[in-house]
């Protein structure tokens, strides 16, 4: 029998290969959606096998699934399917306007499943080298998404993205090499020497100075991919230029994947150097990310950039949760990751539809009163904004409360207070921006209508589906998913 993990990786890869071939549109849609739906099913099967007992690794333990991996795997599979479904609808809309070239079609159907493959590889990698290679793969695939629409600004965004991303990954690689150097003589030989599990076993014997240097470089490196401030500057540009379905993959897939890498490094550091070192760094970077998002959200001029800064805020919240160093806060951070993976796509998909209807995501082109032109997308965007700013009764409210509560009874009260203040201002800023485009009367007669009126097509249907899921998940989290989050907390916090 083929190993379940290998099958989960092969399926999106085959889907990507099929996507490059020239076939009729309906066949291509069916292949991509079918392939990614089956991939999601396999991810769920992996999580189920994990929950029901031991899940065997593969390739000499280079691939391994524990609680954290299983959670990220399920979220990645979900987001991959969502992006593909919306993506098919997105491409149809552009096709109807004659905007789609054969190059775009090939790239889209090939790259999207390819990206899913790289995300899943990150999530199940136990080998730090394989992990690095997989993260670099997501970066290289993303570049094609950023240049997808081939505008002047796409080139600028792609250049900044690739240079900053490569530099970050260079740092992450140096970090990995230094971690490896710190364990010389204790890790064994060959490929398994880079296994995370080996590092954890050898933790007390690792050389402290080399390790510390390695942890700093690796956290900065993977922090660049996650979009933690001050290494976040590629994010708004890339979000604005890439097509919305691809942004979903970046905003959730890459973010979760990079956070997964950060957590792995954090755990090695904690086992070897004690809890203070990397937690302090994460708390600092997380707090900085939340604070830096504040002014840019208040003065924002573009819908997708607004969501990029919201992403920076949320990854900051997760980093703060982990950095606070309390079990409840870690649970809150992982719960936040889960809810963010459900709510952020809703925001991006509805914003994507608004941008597509107005042929631009700039506020100046969308104008005010979008509700009169695109009621469904506008309403869903307002809903997403409420969720993303942490309003009750939605999921992100509960996870944020959990982190705040753990912070206020812990040793980092000042940091938590600053964090809370930033969240309040962010809420106001976001509400202001959303009100600006959605509410109010259209500026003039011409603005009452859009050239391409909103229709109940595949893209809109997917967005509505995502909204239903996001609302329901806030009220009722399925028991297996909750056990997964608990298991992941067990991995990050120590004893299960």
């Amino acid at each position, binding site marked *: 029998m083929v190993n379940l993990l290998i099958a989960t990786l092969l399926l999106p890869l085959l889907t990507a290969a099929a996507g490059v071939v020239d076939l009729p549109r309906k066949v291509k849609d069916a292949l991509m959606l079918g392939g990614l739906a089956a991939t999601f099913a396999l991810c769920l099967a992996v999580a189920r096998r994990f929950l029901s007992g031991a899940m065997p690794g593969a390739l000499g333990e280079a691939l391994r699934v524990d609680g954290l991996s299983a959670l990220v795997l399920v979220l990645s599979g979900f987001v991959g399917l969502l992006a593909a479904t919306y993506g098919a609808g997105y491409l149809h809309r552009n096709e109807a306007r004659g905007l789609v070239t054969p190059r775009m079609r090939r790239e889209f159907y090939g790259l999207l499943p390819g990206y899913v493959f790289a995300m899943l590889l990150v999530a199940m990698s136990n*080998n730090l*080298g*394989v992990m*690095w*290679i997989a993260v*670099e*793969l997501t*970066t*290289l695939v993303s*570049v094609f998404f950023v*240049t997808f629409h081939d505008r*002047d*600004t796409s*080139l*600028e*965004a*792609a*250049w*900044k993205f*690739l*240079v900053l991303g*490569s*530099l970050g990954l*260079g740092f992450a*690689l*140096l970090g990995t*090499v*230094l971690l*490896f*150097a710190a364990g*010389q003589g204790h890790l064994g030989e*060959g*490929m398994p*020497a*880079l296994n995370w599990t080996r590092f954890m076993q050898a933790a007390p014997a690792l*050389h402290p*100075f*080399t390790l510390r*240097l390695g942890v700093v470089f690796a956290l900065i490196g993977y922090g660049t991919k996650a979009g933690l401030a001050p290494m976040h500057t590629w994010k*708004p*540009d890339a979000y*604005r230029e890439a097509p919305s379905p691809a942004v979903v993959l970046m905003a959730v897939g890459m973010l979760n994947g990079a956070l997964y890498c950060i957590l792995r490094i954090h755990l090695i550091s904690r086992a070897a150097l004690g809890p203070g070192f990397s937690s302090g760094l994460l708390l600092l970077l997380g707090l900085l990310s939340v604070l830096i998002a504040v002014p*840019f959200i208040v*003065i*924002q*001029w573009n819908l997708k*950039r607004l969501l990029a800064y919201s992403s920076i805020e949320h990854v900051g919240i997760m980093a703060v949760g982990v950095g606070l160093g309390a079990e409840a806060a870690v649970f809150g951070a992982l719960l936040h990751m889960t809810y963010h993976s459900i709510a952020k796509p809703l925001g991006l998909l509805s914003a994507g539809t608004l941008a597509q209807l107005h042929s631009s995501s700039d506020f100046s082109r969308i104008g005010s009163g979008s509700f009169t032109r695109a009621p469904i997308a506008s309403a869903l965007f307002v809903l997403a904004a409420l969720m993303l700013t942490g309003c009750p009764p939605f999921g992100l409210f509960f996870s944020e409360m959990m982190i705040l509560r753990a912070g206020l009874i812990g040793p980092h009260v000042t940091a938590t207070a600053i964090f809370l203040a930033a969240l309040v201002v962010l809420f106001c800023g976001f509400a202001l921006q959303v009100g600006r485009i959605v509410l109010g009367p259209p500026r003039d007669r011409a603005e009452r209508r859009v050239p391409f009126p909103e229709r109940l097509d595949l893209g809109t249907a997917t967005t509505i589906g995502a909204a239903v899921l996001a609302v329901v998940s806030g009220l009722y989290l399925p028991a297996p998913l909750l056990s997964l989050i608990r298991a992941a907390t067990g991995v990050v916090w120590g004893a299960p």
Partner: protein
Amino acid sequence: MTGDILILCAAGMLVTAYLLVGQKALFTAIRLFGVQSLFLGLVAATIAVASGRHALLVTAALTVALKTVLIPWFLMRTIDRIGIHREIEPVLNVPVSLLVCVGLTVVGYRVSTGFPEGASGVSHHLIGVALSMLFIGLFVMVTRKKAITQILALLTVENAVFLVAVGVTSGMPLVVELGISFDVILAVLILGVLVHRIVDRFESMDVSRLSKLKG
């Protein structure tokens, strides 16, 4: 004997990094990067022969093939096609840049004393040079404007990381090394294509013109 060769090669890498800082002709800069990678290959080969770790010979061969031959050839072809051969005046002039780099080298060597091999011996020099090159690469990246120079700075950082890998560890596992090389070459290819398109659009490869996206 082995130690002398290693130190000589490491010194050679550092010298090429300095020359890269002082260089405005892009062709020469690319050749300098090729020489730097050749030294890196020599370091790996020397360690491989001296310690009998033959997997490192593959690393050495791969480094020379990719970074001394293939990548320089690709970059030269790129600038030949777009016909831009010189870096413009950098933000900091050359003498000041070189002084800053001396400072960075001191910092690099200072940090390298914390490693378990201590402040003596061959690996001290290898780590010291590697960290200095890392800092110099970052410095070039922020002070230079031509896209090709930025790619070279990125590759210098990459070389520094590999020098640490062969100098301090017994070499990364081969599969991982192959994967990393593959990713690096892909990244350079994509960057090269981007340079082409940037020049087509903006009629310049001055990346400081890429400044529409703010806020």
